[in-house]
């Protein structure tokens, strides 16, 4: 590449964030987990929090997130990241504690832990990656899978009679007094990705200010288990997921607005 020669006049507009380790990820091509990672890393960089942040991994496709971030990190049992993060934050209140959870992790097995972390107003930030499926284990139905969605454990499509309708967790957690900032964003196009990044920055600021629990839900793709191409997967988010999981701010407490 002739970059070397032209560099003097060029300014770097975008490069690898410092909080992100310079290693390839194991994610499938086009999986937006990678975007979510990058946004989180950028937000941490921007706020200068890299040396303070402790990351808690979920069990899910993002289990190895600790390999991908240039941060202190630990790895919680499936669904228990909020509890583990509570243990970290309570004993190290001056650190910034961030959990990253999938929809199976957060909504299904870990429903009690997230609900109570939010209710307690636990001063942690949760990045909630909702891809309407269990990615890691090969595409089983999640509590967030859409009605009729075919998955490897709902081969005829999700039957809402038997399994209910998808759970909108941001709406649920927004009910709790302890949650200070709960928003849903999407990763399906550039404009939305930019909004998602802003929300993550705000969520971290909420924690910095000690205002309570903050969470950014990100609608995310799983091309592999949805069985479609990455570009189609982004469209699927837009046309199928967004209508069911409306984007928006579900809880922005007054003290957050004042930030």
């Amino acid at each position, binding site marked *: 590449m002739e970059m070397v020669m032209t560099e003097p006049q060029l300014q770097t507009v975008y490069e690898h964030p410092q909080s992100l380790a310079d290693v390839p990820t194991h*994610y499938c091509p086009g999986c937006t987990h990678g975007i979510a990672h990058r946004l989180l890393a950028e937000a941490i960089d921007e706020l200068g929090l890299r040396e303070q942040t402790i990351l808690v991994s979920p069990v899910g496709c993002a289990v190895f997130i600790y390999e991908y971030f240039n941060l202190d990190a630990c790895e919680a049992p499936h669904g228990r990241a909020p509890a583990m993060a509570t243990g970290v934050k309570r004993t190290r209140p001056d650190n910034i504690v961030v959990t990253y959870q999938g929809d199976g992790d957060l909504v299904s097995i870990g429903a009690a832990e997230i609900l109570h972390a939010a209710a307690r107003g636990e001063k942690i930030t949760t990045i909630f990656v909702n891809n309407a499926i269990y990615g890691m284990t090969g595409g089983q139905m999640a509590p967030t899978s859409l009605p009729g969605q075919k998955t490897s454990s709902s081969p005829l499509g999700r039957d809402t009679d038997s399994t209910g309708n998808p759970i909108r967790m941001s709406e649920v957690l927004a009910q709790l007094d302890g949650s200070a900032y709960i928003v849903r964003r999407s990763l399906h196009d550039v404009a939305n990705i930019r909004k998602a990044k802003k929300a993550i920055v705000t969520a971290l600021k909420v924690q910095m200010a000690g205002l309570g629990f903050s969470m950014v839900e990100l609608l995310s793709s799983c091309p592999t288990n949805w069985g479609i191409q990455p570009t189609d997967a982004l469209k699927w988010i837009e046309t199928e997921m967004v209508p069911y999981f409306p984007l928006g701010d579900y809880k922005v407490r007054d003290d957050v607005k004042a930030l």
Partner: protein
Amino acid sequence: MQQEFLFAGFGGQGVMFAGQILAHAAMDEGLEVTWIPSYGPEMRGGTAHCFVVISDKPIGSPVTRHPAVGIVFNNPSFTKYEAEIATGGLLVANSSLITVKSQRTDLRVLEIPATQTADDLGDLRLTNIVMVGATLIAYPAIPVAAVERALEKYLPAHRRNLLPLNRQALAKGAELATNMVQSA
């Protein structure tokens, strides 16, 4: 006598099915058989492999350290498994994609341009069957015809229409191998 086959390649090259069809065929020949996939870390991409063991007696281990036959579909698999094949064993390499050469002198090596052949037949997904056809010529654990019967019986419904092509691929693989073995 126990005979072990290792199939290895990229995910998507049909190595799993290649092993399964061989296993089916052997079973229908009245032999004992096991098939087991590489089943490792839940990571995407990378190489996949499976093991087939055929025997006339009950099979203990479905895996062995040194299989008698290695059927490798791409460079990474070649590099990874070449050394593991038993002394005196057979290495079948998809020469359409594999650019490296075996350094081992204690192996029979069969280079089959399987991907090319499949492409010529009009469907890249036939690569695996070409390889199976070739393998059974060089290492006649069961007759090629047994695999043909197995294809008829076990080809999944949605791929039934590809049966004639599969037959051709099998025959073509056998033919390629026959020529090579004879010419060797």
